[in-house]
């Protein structure tokens, strides 16, 4: 299925979970990472069960040096 993943149209396997998407991006799922779908933050406790579907806009941010 196609998603917009951090601004890039990306083909991912159907049924991918949020942790799967983090793996595709090369993010570790630890502290300091947050995920939003279609502009809404998805709490970490809901990552496993969240239904990722075709066309969703997924944003993944992590804490980095800066500011």
């Amino acid at each position, binding site marked *: 299925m196609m998603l917009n993943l951090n601004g890039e149209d990306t083909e991912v396997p159907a049924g991918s979970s949020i942790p799967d998407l983090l793996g595709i991006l090369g993010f570790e799922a630890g502290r300091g990472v*947050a995920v939003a779908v279609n502009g809404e933050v998805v709490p970490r406790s809901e990552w496993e069960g969240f239904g990722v579907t075709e066309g969703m806009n997924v944003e993944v941010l992590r804490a*980095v*040096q800066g*500011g």
Partner: protein
Amino acid sequence: MREKLQIAGRVFQSRLIFGTGGFTSLQVMGDALRETGAEMVTVAMRRVDPVAGGSILEVIDAAGCDVLPNTAGCFTAADAVFTARMAREALGTEWIKLEVIGDDKTLLPDGPELLTAAEQLVDEGFIVLPYCNDDPILARRLEQVGCAAVMPLGSPIGSGAGIRNPYNLAIILENAGVPVILDAGIGTASDATVAMELGCDAVLIASSVSRAKDPVRMARAMRLAVESGRLAHEAGRIPRRLYAEASSPTEGLAGT
């Protein structure tokens, strides 16, 4: 008993807040951080980490510091609010250093967007520390919407130009009912001292340390500078005079 810095009910021993941008490695950043004695460290939120591998959070944890996420790089209130929400989820803190800038060349805050974002985030329960212009009216408005501190700039981010308008800063300090933290523009130790002598409650130090030839040594200089400036502020400086005022007795001189 000396008065401690207090923001939103939290007491700090150090009056130096540490910015993490611009360090060439996490090792140097961690060494510099320990030298400053800072207890709060600000981090940005990005899609990728373009600078360094490893975990910045581990370095901050190892130094025993709290993390203060920021919204650096945001140009609109909407982007800043979104970034703050992401930071809260990522880092488990309500604290946010709010930055909403107007353009890439000056990196100066966009006042209307900043105020809009501040109001929204306060409503959502964030402890908001806004990076703002050295504008006494904007600082007052930010305080009125519930910000826990105000963070006026001395001069543009990374410019190292020091405090360009100490008179505006003095007006902000005289009127503020929340801590005033000088953010941006500090180039070297004396700039930090001046900020503290003027009465700032704290300073945020970033580029002046991270881009110094020897960041760890500059970090120590900044710690001493902030402590010196604060002590001088508490001690109370003598007034400036146009003419001399003798410090020796004027009575009992030879030949009188």
